[in-house]
């Protein structure tokens, strides 16, 4: 595969976030880069910073947990469901995607 330029990645990111935002029930989405800095967010600044801080460190714990159980394994995704909403964290090679959506019975962005 030919290496994608940074600009293409940026465009792809915008496109993905836009698609995600269109799903019913999505409250917000945040993209964090490898340095732990939120590069894109549909939430206000304060919420973005809070979610980024809390979930980045939780993600590291999840990664460690998986490695401790099996050193050859790797975290691919995690989903936190609470009474009021659901937080999805998807780590990737270059980014971490966080999506916050309402918990409901109907199929949501994550399931479709």
């Amino acid at each position, binding site marked *: 595969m030919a290496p994608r330029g940074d600009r293409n990645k940026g465009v792809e990111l915008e496109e993905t976030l836009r698609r995600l935002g269109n799903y019913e029930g999505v409250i917000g989405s945040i993209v964090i880069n490898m340095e732990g800095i939120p590069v894109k967010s549909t939430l206000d600044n304060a919420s973005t910073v809070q979610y980024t801080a809390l979930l980045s460190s939780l993600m590291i714990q999840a990664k460690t947990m998986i490695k401790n159980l099996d050193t050859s394994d790797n975290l691919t995704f995690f989903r*936190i469901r609470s009474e009021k909403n659901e937080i999805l964290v998807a780590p990737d090679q270059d980014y971490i995607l966080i999506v916050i959506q309402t918990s409901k019975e109907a199929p949501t962005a994550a399931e479709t």
Partner: protein
Amino acid sequence: MTYEGVKNYRAELEETLKRLSEHDGVQGLVVIDKEGRVSQTTFDQQYTKKILSNISGFTSQTRNVVRDLDPMNDLSFVRVRSNKTEILIAPEEDYILVVIQQPSQD
């Protein structure tokens, strides 16, 4: 609860856990009690220890994150997926149920 009641309860619990652990794709399960000790497990001792030491802490941390974001909110379920497994964590009032299964197909 009467003595009979307790026996029935335990039997029903074991039956449910057994059914769960025999479900397609399920590698095993662990029940962690309120004190953080293992009350039921279908894994060997070594793996169970690993699960206890890793998952209890992670579950508490996750719960803290939920409460930090909204003190009126509470954790109801966690699903952690990796290349090889999927860990389902159901934190209840008196115990934490952990089920480890094959990653579900998308």
